[in-house]
């Protein structure tokens, strides 16, 4: 019985040590664990020029301009915002299907001397909200959801009784 108890304590102590070591390591490497920086992160801790990195946030409503360049490729310019700050991004190439105003986006590239961001790739980042299109339309019609904005909190619409969607 006491040998079992001793093994139990040794294992728990090992687990504690391993857990704290992991927590310390992850905290130390936090900067390389984040997949992208928000415009506010970049304002607080500016990136050196010519260093590639990723910037993420929402595509600012009304900021998207599309054009075709001299070689006939699609060019898109938009602003990435995190609510507090925003950054102008330009990109040449095909955008993912989900790309639209108010949608999450992660752009990879580097800063230009003028402070705008030249993206070499653009990924869409969707939020964790899942609902039928009819429910989304009903929420927008009822004024609970401003177009170009993130969806309202789930507690407002996801009750067991269905919202009158039709």
């Amino acid at each position, binding site marked *: 019985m006491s040998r079992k108890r001793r093994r139990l304590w040794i294992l728990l102590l090992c687990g504690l040590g*391993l857990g704290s070591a*992991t927590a310390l390591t992850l905290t130390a490497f936090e900067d390389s664990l984040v997949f992208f920086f928000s415009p506010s992160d970049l304002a607080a801790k500016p990136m050196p020029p010519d260093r590639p990195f990723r910037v993420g946030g929402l595509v600012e409503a009304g900021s998207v301009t599309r054009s075709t360049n001299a070689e006939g490729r699609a060019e898109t310019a938009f602003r990435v915002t995190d609510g507090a700050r925003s950054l102008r991004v330009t990109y040449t190439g095909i955008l993912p299907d989900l790309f639209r105003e108010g949608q999450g986006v992660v752009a990879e590239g580097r800063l230009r001397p003028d402070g705008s961001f030249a993206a070499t790739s653009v990924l869409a980042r969707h939020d964790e*909200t899942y609902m*039928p299109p009819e429910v*989304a339309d009903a929420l927008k019609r009822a004024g609970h959801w401003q177009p170009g904005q993130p969806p309202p909190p789930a507690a407002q619409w996801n009750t067991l009784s269905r919202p009158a969607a039709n």
Partner: protein
Amino acid sequence: MDGNAAPRGSSLHRFANPGRFMRLSGAMLPWLAALAIAVSALGLVWGLAFAPRDWQQGDTVRIMYVHVPAAWMAMGGYLGLAVASFVSLVWRHPLADIAAAAIAPVGAVFTAICLITGSLWGKPMWGTWWVWDARLTSVLVLFFLYLGHIALTAAFDEPDRAARPAAILALIGAVNLPIIKFSVEWWNTLHQPASVTRLDAPAIHMDILWPLLVAAAGFLFAFASLVLLRMRTAILERRARALMLARAAAARLPEAMPA
């Protein structure tokens, strides 16, 4: 899969408990397997044909009905592996070793399903098959932990000697579980945060959530059936091994054996 195949030789006293396990699991397994097939089929057909499209992701949301249950089984399976390993190390229960060795390949298959279906979902929605963000990378690490456990278990000729190193590996790897779960909250990731396990209401409409929960229940039954079946196989393999060793010993020392 009848219960009659349970080992009857009670002289192998170490397998007294596995003997009871064989009777119980033999009675349960046909029902569990039938439930697994029926409930998974219900959840997947519901998700494929009857659940609504999603407002932002259209029909690709249907990949969720295989991706998310597989992800839950991948993580829940590893939790089971860690608990079995803990019991094995502290109490040295032979069934715990057998359970750990049975869980690892099943968990690895569910993790592979999660990774592949996630990739098939990421390409049309995010615009990429794969990124090295914290969530995707930590799930890939989970897959390698499962593979490492399988390889370590297979590296020993005697299953009893593999148990302890494999259990230690499984417990060390368990630090990865909270990292997977909270990666989407601790660090910016391309993967979105949790939809179902939230403090407020789940961010999934009920018309999409119900088929997801049914598919998850079906996957859970499938996981349990496969683990039980593999545990039963492992017990029979150990019994065959014990019979063979006993015969070999009897052949070497015929006079020393009691009549």
